[in-house]
C-alpha cells in the first residue's frame, strides 16, 4: 500500500474507483484470495471423505473388537488386535509373499520400462504404433487379463507349460505353477510386469524427450557410447520421473490384490493357494475381514500395511535419488 503512495501516478481515478463501489473491491479481494482455495477445495473435500476419514476410522476400528459373524463380541480391544497380528504366522507369511512378489515385479518392471523407453526414443518406423502398443496392457482391465493369465499358468492345459515342454521341461510331470512359492510368485509378478511396463515406459519416454539433444551430442563428441549415455545422462536427467514411478509402484506392489486373488483356483477363498503360498497382505486383510468376519484384526493389518508402505516408499525414493545423483 505504501508503495502505491510513492508512485507519482494521477490520484484521481484511484479515488474515484474507491468511491464507486466498496462491494466491487470486496469482490476483487475475494476473487484473488479465496477463490483459488475454493476451486481446489473439491479435491480436498473428496480426499477428506474417501481418504482421511477411512484412515482415521480404520485406526479406531483396529482398536476395537468387531466381528461380523458374532455381534456380541464388541468393545475396546486396546492393542490386542495388533499383538495378535504380530504373533500370527499367517501375517508374516503374507508379508514375506508381498515383499517377494513386490521385488520380482517392481525391479524387472522398471528396468525393462527404461530399456523400452530408450528404444522408443530412437528414430523408428511407425513410432505412434509402437507407443500405443506398449500401452495396451495398461488399458486392458485387470480382471480380464488376470483370468487369461490364470489359464495361461494352468497345470494341465496352460500355455506356459506348453512353452516349457517345447524346450524340454516338465515332460513327465507338468509344472504346477500354483503349488510352490517361487513358481506362483513368478506367475503373479509376470502379470504385474506385463501390465505396468508399458505405462512406465511412456512416462520415461516423455521425460527423455524433454532432455536437450545437445547434451547427447556433446557426450557423443566426448566419446560416450549409448550405454554410458543411458546411465550417465538419461537416467540422472529423468530422475524426478524415476522417483515418481518407484514410489508409485511401491505403493501398488505392496497393495497387490487383484492378481493374486484371481490367480487362485477358487478366488472366493482369498487364501492365496492351498498353503497361502502367494497370499499377499491385501488378500489376508480381505480374508480376515470379510471372510472370517474379524474387522478389528483386518483394520489393524491395514494400518500396519499403511505404515510399511510409507517407510518403504520413503526408503525407495531416497535410494533412487542417490542412484540418480551419485553417478
Amino acid at each position, binding site marked *: 500500500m505504501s508503495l502505491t503512495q510513492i508512485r507519482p501516478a494521477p490520484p484521481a481515478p484511484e479515488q474515484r474507483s474507491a468511491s464507486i463501489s466498496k462491494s466491487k473491491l470486496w469482490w476483487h479481494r475475494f476473487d484473488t484470495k479465496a477463490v483459488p482455495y475454493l476451486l481446489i477445495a473439491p479435491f480436498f473435500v473428496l480426499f477428506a471423505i474417501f481418504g482421511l476419514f477411512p484412515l482415521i476410522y480404520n485406526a479406531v476400528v483396529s482398536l476395537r473388537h468387531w466381528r461380523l459373524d458374532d455381534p456380541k463380541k464388541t468393545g475396546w480391544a486396546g492393542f490386542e488386535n495388533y499383538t495378535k497380528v504380530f504373533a500370527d504366522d499367517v501375517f508374516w507369511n503374507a508379508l514375506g509373499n508381498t515383499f517377494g512378489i513386490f521385488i520380482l515385479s517392481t525391479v524387472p518392471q522398471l528396468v525393462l520400462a527404461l530399456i523400452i523407453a530408450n528404444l522408443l526414443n530412437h528414430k523408428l518406423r511407425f513410432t505412434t504404433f509402437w507407443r500405443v502398443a506398449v500401452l495396451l496392457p495398461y488399458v486392458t482391465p485387470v480382471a480380464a487379463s488376470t483370468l487369461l493369465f490364470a489359464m495361461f499358468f494352468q497345470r494341465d492345459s496352460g500355455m506356459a507349460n506348453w512353452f516349457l515342454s517345447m524346450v524340454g521341461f516338465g515332460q513327465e510331470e507338468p509344472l504346477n505353477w500354483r503349488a510352490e512359492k517361487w513358481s506362483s510368485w513368478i506367475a503373479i509378478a509376470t502379470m504385474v510386469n506385463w501390465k505396468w511396463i508399458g505405462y512406465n515406459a511412456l512416462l520415461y519416454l516423455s521425460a527423455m524427450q524433454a532432455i536437450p539433444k545437445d547434451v547427447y551430442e556433446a557426450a557423443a563428441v566426448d566419446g560416450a557410447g549409448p550405454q554410458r549415455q543411458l546411465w550417465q545422462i538419461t537416467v540422472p536427467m529423468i530422475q524426478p520421473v524415476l522417483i515418481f514411478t518407484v514410489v508409485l509402484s511401491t505403493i501398488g506392489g505392496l497393495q497387490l490384490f487383484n492378481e493374486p486373488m484371481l490367480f487362485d483356483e*477358487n478366488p*472366493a477363498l482369498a487364501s492365496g493357494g492351498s498353503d497361502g503360498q502367494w497370499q499377499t497382505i491385501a488378500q489376508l486383510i480381505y480374508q480376515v475381514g470379510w471372510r472370517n468376519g474379524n474387522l478389528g484384526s483386518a483394520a489393524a493389518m491395514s494400518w500396519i500395511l499403511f505404515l510399511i508402505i510409507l517407510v518403504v516408499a520413503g526408503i525407495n525414493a531416497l535410494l533412487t535419488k542417490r542412484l540418480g545423483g551419485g553417478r
Partner: protein
Amino acid sequence: MQTFGRRALGVTAAGLAAALAISGCSGEKLAGNGGDSGGGEGQITLKVNYFGDMGQQMLKERFEKANPNIKITLNSAEFNAHHEDLQKKLVAGSGAADVVAVDEGFMVKFKAQGDQFVNLLDHGLGSAESRYLPWKWKNSLTADGKQIGMGTDVGGLAMCYRTDLFKAAGLPTDRDQVSALWPTWDKFIATGQTYTKASGKKFIDSGTNLFNPVLGQQPVGFYDEKDQLQMEGGPKVAFDVSMKAIEAGISANLVSFQPGWNQGFNADKFAVLACPAWMLGHIQQTAPGTKGKWDIAAIPGGGGNWGGSWWTIPAQTKNAAAAAKFIEFATAPEQQIEVFKTVGNLPSQPALYKDQAVLDFKHPFMSNAPTGQIFAKTAESLKPQYLGVKHGKTREDVEKVITQVGEGKVKPGEAWPKAVEAAQKVASS
C-alpha cells in the same frame, strides 16, 4: 497470482471431472441394483440367491407364469462365498436376498440364529412336515421349534463313471459289474491302480472328492452332538482313504469345483467321480459333450450322504409372504419331480421315491441309468450325521491340507497332524 489462479482452475477442473465421474458411476450402479421395489404397482421382485444348480431356471419360469405379479431375480455365487455373504447380511441387518439357499454344512450355524429367519410355520408350511424325511425336517428346526427352511434335496451317494474310458482300460462297463468291482474303498483304490496302469491316465479327480463321501458315510463327522471336534474318528478314516488314493497315484489332483477341474471333465482327466445326486447337474452343465458316456454304480462302503439344501427366508425381507409362496411352490411335489428329472437333485420327500415318475425315470445323460431307483435306495437307508456349527469352515481348511498333498508340498504320511492342526484352529476360533 495470475499463474496461480490458472493452475488452480486446471486442478479444479480435473477434480470436478473426477467428482462427476464418481457420481456418474454410483448413479449407474444404483440404477442397476434398483430391483428392490420392482416396477409397477403391486409388482413384487423376489431376489433368490443360490449356489450350484437347484433347478432355479425352471422354477423361475413356472412360478412367474403362475404369479404374474411376482418377478424372480436369480443370483448365483460360489459355495463358500454364498454362505459367508448370507452371514454378513444377517449381522448387518440388511442386504440379504428374499429367498436364500442354505447347504447342510452351514444349516447348523444358521439354525443357531433362528430369529434371523422367517418361521415358515407362520406361513402355513407346517402341513408339509409329513411329506419330508423326518431328519431332513428336523435339521432345519430350531431348538425353540421354529422351522427356518424347507428341504430341497438330499445328496445320497453313488459313483459316476465313464463307460468309454472304462472300456478302453479293459474294465467292465455294466453298472452291476462295476459296483461289484469295489465293495470297499481298498478295492476301489486297487481298481484305480488297474485302470491307471492300463490307460496311463488318472482314475479319480481329487483326494478331497474321496474325503467328503467317505466322511459322509461315518456315524460321526468333524463334530459330535456337543460340538466337540472329533478328528480321530470319522475324519481320520476319510483322510486315510484320500491319502491312500493320492499315494497310489490314481488322483488327478484337481481342485474340485474350479476351472481346472471343470476342464478335466472334458479332457478325460479322470474316469470316476463320487456322485451325490446334485453332482449330475454339475456334470451336465460342465461337460455337455460327455452325454451318454457316464453311468452310475454303487459307492464303496454303501450308503452315506453328501450335501443337500434348504430354501430359507431371512427375517429382514420385506416380501416374506411372497417368498414363502415361492418356497412352497418350489418344494411342491410336481416341481421337485421336475427338478429331479432336469437337474438330477434327489427330493427329500420319501413319497416321491415311490412315485412312478421317479421310479421309471431313466437319466438320458447318464446312459439311461435309473437314477430314481439308485439314489432313492441310498437316501432311505440313510443315517444322517450331525454337522457341527463350524463344519463348513473346518471342511474347507482340512480340504486345503489334502490339496497340499496332491500338489506334492506335503507327504501323505505327514499330512494328518497338519489336518488336525488346521481343524483345531477353526474349532478354537
